[in-house]
C-alpha cells in the first residue's frame, strides 16, 4: 500500500525539479495551466492521456509549452463477470513529455470460484508510462493535414506470477510500445486518433505476457473518433485490437462508446459503455464504465 505514496512523492519531486529547471524560463514566463478544455484528453485505464482505452498523442495535464501540469484519475468498469478498477497519475511537462503511473485491480468476483481461483480473486497490475510528442499540433494546425504524433512506452508488471504461469502465460512483466496520431478536425467538430501498439500482453497485461506457443510481439491497431457537441462535451467511440496468445481462453478486441465532459478546468467525468469481448473463457464482457479525472 505504501507503494502509491512513494510514487506520488517521486512525481512531486520530478515536478519540482522540472519546474525549477524548465527551459520555459528562458524567454517566456512560467505559466500554470492554460490548456483548452479536453485537450489534455482524459486518462486511459493504463494512465496515459487519451481516451478510455486508447492513448492519444495529446499530453497529460493543463500546462502549455510554458509550464508543467498533471492529472489523476479513478476508473471503474463493471462487466457481467468481472470488475476492473484503475487509479492513475500523470505529469505533463511543456505540453511535450508525459510520465504516468496506473494501478489496476481486476476482481474476478464470484466468477473467481468458477475459474477455480476462489471467489473474489483479484489480479493486479502496475503500469509505468512515458510519452513524447514528436511533431504537429492537433488543435492549432487546422490548415495542415498533419496530425499531432507521439510515441509512448508502457512498462507493465502483473502480480501473481506463479498463477499466470499456470494459466499458460510466459511472464509477468512486459513492455508495450506505441505510436499515436491525433487530430482535431475543427471545421467538422471531429477528433480522430489512430494508434499502433507493439505488445504481447494478455488482457492488457493483467493475465501476463506471451505464452509458450506464442511469445512474439504483435502489432495491434487502436482508434478513437469523437464529436464535439460543445467545447466541453466530447462523445464518441473507440476500438482496440489485442493479441490472442493464451491457449485456455480466446481473447478478442475491446471497444467502447463514451461521453467525456469537462465539468470545469480541473475536473472531467467520462461515462462509457465498454465491451472487453471475451475474457478468461467468459464471453461478452461488457458493461458501464465511469471515470473521474482531475488535472492542473
Amino acid at each position: 500500500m505504501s507503494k502509491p505514496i512513494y510514487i506520488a512523492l517521486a512525481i512531486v519531486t520530478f515536478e519540482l525539479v522540472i519546474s525549477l529547471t524548465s527551459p520555459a524560463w528562458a524567454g517566456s514566463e512560467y505559466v500554470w495551466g492554460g490548456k483548452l478544455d479536453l485537450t489534455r484528453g482524459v486518462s486511459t485505464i493504463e494512465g496515459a492521456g487519451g481516451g478510455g482505452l486508447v492513448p492519444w498523442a495529446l499530453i497529460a495535464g493543463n500546462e502549455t509549452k510554458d509550464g508543467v501540469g498533471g492529472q489523476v484519475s479513478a476508473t471503474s468498469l463493471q462487466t457481467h463477470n468481472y470488475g476492473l478498477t484503475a487509479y492513475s497519475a500523470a505529469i505533463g511537462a511543456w505540453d511535450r513529455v508525459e510520465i504516468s503511473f496506473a494501478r489496476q485491480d481486476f476482481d474476478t468476483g464470484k466468477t473467481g470460484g468458477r475459474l477455480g481461483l476462489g471467489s473474489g480473486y483479484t489480479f493486479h497490475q502496475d503500469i509505468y508510462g512515458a510519452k513524447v510528442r514528436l511533431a504537429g499540433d492537433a488543435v492549432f494546425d487546422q490548415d495542415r493535414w498533419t496530425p499531432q504524433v507521439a510515441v509512448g512506452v508502457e512498462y507493465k508488471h502483473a502480480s501473481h506470477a506463479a498463477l499466470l504461469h499456470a494459466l499458460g502465460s510466459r511472464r509477468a512483466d512486459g513492455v508495450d510500445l506505441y505510436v499515436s496520431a491525433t487530430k482535431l478536425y475543427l471545421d467538422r467538430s471531429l477528433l480522430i486518433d489512430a494508434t499502433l501498439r507493439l505488445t504481447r500482453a494478455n488482457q492488457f497485461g493483467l493475465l501476463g505476457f506471451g505464452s509458450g506457443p506464442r511469445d512474439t510481439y504483435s502489432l495491434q491497431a487502436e482508434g478513437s473518433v469523437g464529436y464535439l457537441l460543445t467545447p466541453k462535451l466530447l462523445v464518441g467511440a473507440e476500438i482496440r485490437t489485442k493479441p490472442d496468445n493464451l491457449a485456455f481462453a480466446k481473447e478478442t478486441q475491446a471497444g467502447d462508446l463514451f461521453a467525456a465532459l469537462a465539468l470545469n478546468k480541473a475536473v472531467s467525468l467520462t461515462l462509457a459503455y465498454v465491451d472487453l469481448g471475451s475474457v478468461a473463457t467468459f464471453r461478452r464482457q461488457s458493461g458501464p464504465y465511469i471515470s473521474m479525472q482531475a488535472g492542473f
Partner: protein
Amino acid sequence: MRLGLTLAASIMILASTAQADEKAVEPYVQSDANAGVLPMTTDAVFQAFHGRDGVDRIVHRLNWFHNHDPRLVDTFKAADNERLERTLSEMLCYILGGPCHYTGREMKDLHKDMGVQVFQLNAQIEDLQTAMSEEHVPVWAQNKLLAKLAPLKRMIVVR
C-alpha cells in the same frame, strides 16, 4: 507616376474609413491579406452568426473580456478599443464569408512585440466561445470560425 498617385489616393480613401475617435496608427498598406486567413467561400456560417449585427455583438463582448479577463487585461490595457472593435469585426465578417473588407494592420506585424503566450491565446479563444454561445451561434459554426483562426497562432504566439 499615375499609378503612384492612384495608389496614394486609394490608401488615403481607405484610411479615411477610420473613425474620428480612433487614435492614429503608423501608416500601413491596407489589404484583406493582412487578415492572414482566406475567407470562407459561402456565407452559410456568416448567417449562423446572425450577420454583421451578430458579429458586432460578439466582438463587443469579446473586447469586454479583453478588458476584464485577468489573463488578458495587462496586454490589452493600452489598446485602442474603438479601433480594435471596428477592425476585428471587419476581420471576422470577412473571414466568415460576409460582405466586408479587413482594413486593419497585418496580423504578424501587429502582434509581434506583445510577447503573447499560449495560455493567453487559449484564454481569448474561451472568451470568444462564451461570446459566440451568448449570441446562440451553434457549436458547428463556432468551430468553423475557430478552424480558420487557429493557424494564426503561428503569427501571434512568437516567443
